[in-house]
């Protein structure tokens, strides 16, 4: 099971430490790399997506980082996600300085911090970047993992280079795997090969699943991020917005008219408003991408003898770039050029540093479905949500899944009460609700003095149920509900 390193993790090993006697530490050899090392302390304010007018619990986490050129600190995005206060401590120093988040790339889990006090950078030495290491190259991981307070250095080799799902964004990106120990707290720390930084340690496996399997954000993605930081605009790694099927079966290839020598993969679905929307079609065979020929198993060549998932070329691009694709459509060879876009999702993955979107009307709490909501919802959300999260695709008819998450009790919503929660809104007063923004207009047009809210067919229970409210009393009721529940605003900023 993949877990994000760091995060609320200092507890388990403390008991062990107490029973060990430590010999006096021998003076360490001068290590210039230590001059770039920084320990990061973050106070996190978690959002509350179920009661979005309130904030969630606060917690303290710690991670690692390093000083880079331009008086900045590089770390993982997840070390400073949802932060309200960041402090940094130089290796060997005792004073913590206040730091601020300057840029963040959630998709490749990187962040740049700045420190206003120039005194902080005195005596520090920015890291120097190296190139992509090869398999078996020796690496050293610097950081502040669980097990103690002081700097920890672990050694190992590069064991794999591949596309891996980044747990912080669930995007599949270029990644280096090492057998050097990477533990909670190592997150954001630099990884060196021959004194040059080749990556940032960022995730590993729970020890019960796999050992000596740590993951590193490769230097390529770091350089890509920093070059965009210079231009003060970050572009996430684009996605193609297609679902594909491998073509390892001879009959399948023959059926689509491929020659014996031809290789490629089958496009089985094109995501609405993704990069390939209106460009690629279902049943196209994708032969090459950005000049990389795609094999029947969906891989492209990488380096000498290696193969990577065909999404690899995307890691080298940014939003808006053009990417040529060779395809076979109706047994004819064609070239199509895509303009690259970000992932188009119906139910977004966890968002960071964002305020939840909501609207309260007559006690009904409207909010869009996203993974944050799923995680904070009370009780067990219906299985359809899970299904929507995995398989749901956006369409012109549905750009967001708008929910009535629950109902704040008041006389106006008598009889609906606690029974109705987690319902997917289909129409309000006959107007289809494709996203949160549609609510405002629809609620302004009551039908014969009533607000009529219709829901998507949940299939089994509460099928076809409607919520009908007295329109004349609704505004007054909303004001009373807000006052009673100490809610400052009936909607989030984005809907004002």
């Amino acid at each position, binding site marked *: 099971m993949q877990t994000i390193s760091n995060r609320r993790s200092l507890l388990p090993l403390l008991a062990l430490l107490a029973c060990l006697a430590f010999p006096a530490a021998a003076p360490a050899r001068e290590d210039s790399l230590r001059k770039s090392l920084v320990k990061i302390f973050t106070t996190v304010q978690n959002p509350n997506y179920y009661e979005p007018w309130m904030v969630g619990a606060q917690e303290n986490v710690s991670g690692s980082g390093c000083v880079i050129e331009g008086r900045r600190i590089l770390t993982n995005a997840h070390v400073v996600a949802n932060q309200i206060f960041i402090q940094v401590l130089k290796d060997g120093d005792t004073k913590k300085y206040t730091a601020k988040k300057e840029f963040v790339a959630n998709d490749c889990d990187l962040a740049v911090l700045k420190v206003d006090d120039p005194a902080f950078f005195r005596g520090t030495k920015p890291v120097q970047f190296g190139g992509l290491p090869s398999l078996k190259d020796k690496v050293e991981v610097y950081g502040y993992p669980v097990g103690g307070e002081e700097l920890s250095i672990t050694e190992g080799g590069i064991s794999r280079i591949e596309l891996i799902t980044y747990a912080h964004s669930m995007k599949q990106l270029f990644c280096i795997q090492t057998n050097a120990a990477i533990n909670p707290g190592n997150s954001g720390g630099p990884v060196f090969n021959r004194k040059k930084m080749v990556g940032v340690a960022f995730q590993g496996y729970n020890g019960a699943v796999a050992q000596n399997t740590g993951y590193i954000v490769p230097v390529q993605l770091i350089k890509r991020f920093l070059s965009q930081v210079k231009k003060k605009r970050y572009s996430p790694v684009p996605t193609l917005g297609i679902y594909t099927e491998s073509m390892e079966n001879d009959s*399948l290839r023959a059926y689509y008219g491929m020659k014996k020598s031809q290789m490629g993969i089958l496009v089985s679905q094109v995501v609405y408003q993704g990069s390939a929307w209106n460009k690629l079609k279902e049943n196209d065979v994708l032969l090459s991408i950005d000049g990389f020929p795609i094999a029947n198993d969906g891989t492209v060549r990488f380096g000498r003898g290696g193969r990577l998932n065909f999404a690899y070329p995307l890691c080298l691009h940014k939003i808006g770039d053009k990417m040529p694709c060779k395809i076979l459509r109706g047994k004819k060879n064609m070239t199509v050029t895509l303009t690259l876009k970000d992932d188009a999702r119906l139910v977004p993955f966890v968002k960071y540093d964002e305020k939840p979107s909501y609207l309260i009307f007559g006690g009904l709490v409207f909010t869009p479905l996203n993974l944050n909501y799923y995680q904070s919802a009370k009780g067990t959300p219906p299985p359809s949500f899970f299904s929507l999260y995995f398989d749901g695709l956006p369409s012109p008819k549905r750009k967001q899944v708008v929910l009535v998450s629950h109902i704040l009790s008041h006389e106006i919503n008598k009889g609906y009460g606690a029974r109705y929660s987690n319902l997917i809104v289909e129409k309000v007063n006959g107007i289809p609700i494709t996203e949160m923004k549609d609510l405002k207009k629809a609620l302004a047009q009551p039908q014969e003095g009533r607000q009529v809210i219709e829901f998507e067919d949940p299939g089994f229970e509460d099928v*076809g149920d409607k919520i009908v409210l007295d329109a004349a009393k609704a505004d007054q009721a909303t004001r009373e509900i807000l006052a009673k529940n100490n809610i400052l605003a009936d909607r989030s900023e984005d809907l004002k």
Partner: protein
Amino acid sequence: MRHPLKSPFLILALALALAPACKPKPKPEPAVKPAVKAEKPLNKSVVKVFTTVQKVDFYEPWKPGTQAQQEGCGVILPGGHILTTSHITNKSNYIEVQKFGQTKRYVAKVEQVGYDLDLSLLSIEDQEFYKDTEPVEFGDLPSPGDKVTVQGGDELSVKQDTISGLDMFWSTEAGRFLPALITYTDVDNKNNGCPVFLNGKFIGLPFEVVHSPEKTASLLPVNVVQRFLEGVKDGKTYDGFPDLGVEVQTLENPTLQSYEGLPADKTGVVVTKVLYQGSAEGLLKEGDILTAIDGHPIDNEGDINLVKNQRIDYSYLITFYQMGQSVSLDIFREGKAQSLMVPLKPLPRLVSYRSDDTHPTYYLYAGFVFVPLTTSYFQSKAAYKPSFKKLMQQGLPSPQRQEVVLISHVLPHDINVGYDKQFNLIVDKVNGMPITRMKDLITALGKPAGRYQVIEIDEHAWFGSKIVFEAAKAKKATAEIMAELQIPEDRSKDLGKGN
């Protein structure tokens, strides 16, 4: 690109509980139990039941499955049959019954099963068994607060309980709501089928124990048991209890009531969906308001006042009808009151519940294992899939889909190279023909489109959309796979004979 979000990590982390939320309304028990004289145990009527069950493997349905032992208890009925719960006799191939305080076990066989009521009726050939036994007497439906006794457990010991109410309660075994007497209890799962008595008379059989928030047991009330016995009278085979086949919404909100057009002096519930192939199909319409059933007025919460001043959901009444009988409904349609008779049919289901799955259905072709989605299949070692859970809990049949036909997994062979790692794919079409149920598969695979068999997968499949293989080689491949894996038949018996 394969979707990055579909990592096994999340699938595990977000796994959900299976049973839909049920809504018990337990009434609080008095803090101090009044002292009640303990009742005499009914040692001559209560028996222990031992079963050997054949656990069918729904993942590899051609395998005979492994054996397991189960035990519970039962009660001797007037006429000599023994009543117990069907979940201990389900899939059993050997049953024994033991009397109180005796060591000898008598062989029994299942006479009738009511899976949807979780009831099973056993008979014993050896007349010696009945010596020194007494059949139970049926009691009346108890009232809240009545002190009852439960007899069961390893030693068929007696425990005291209090009835807290009558309600419709979710049965995991039956997969639907059943009338239930709720008790706070010490009864646990070991007491499968142990009878409950009031003043020495039989009043119910526990079918579900819920451990949270408080431990409660649901008893199938005596009147429902009697209705079951009525249904199997004179050797008739039990055919289940019917369902009205509608979804309704309660009308507690005055604005909703006026919106649906029900005058303020009337009460009822509004029909929000008429189920395909259900009893009310073609008779009721969306927007109809049910105001009375069988002459009993339905209130705005959907309850009727029927049993000793207790209010209970109107669907309670339907439980007492036999299949094919008609129920009379008063409705309000487009502002006018009407009455109609609805002949009753079974509850339509898209995914069969586990109690119905006695013999798994399967079809094997070119290494592809086709099965219908059933609860038992889902609970076998089949991989977790959120959309299955949705279909199981929320799926209703439609003309386009009466069964969810799956490729459960693929037995590897040259013919299916490239597809052999796939599993749990929902089949949409085969050779252009829509697959609405398992039987369609066999027809469609008999008509390949040119050289190839083309299987189209539901568009939300994680893996892709099409499986294509050579039609001419499929038959030989199937035979080779069956020989290699020692699979006796390419299909289950219900799909007819193979070639």
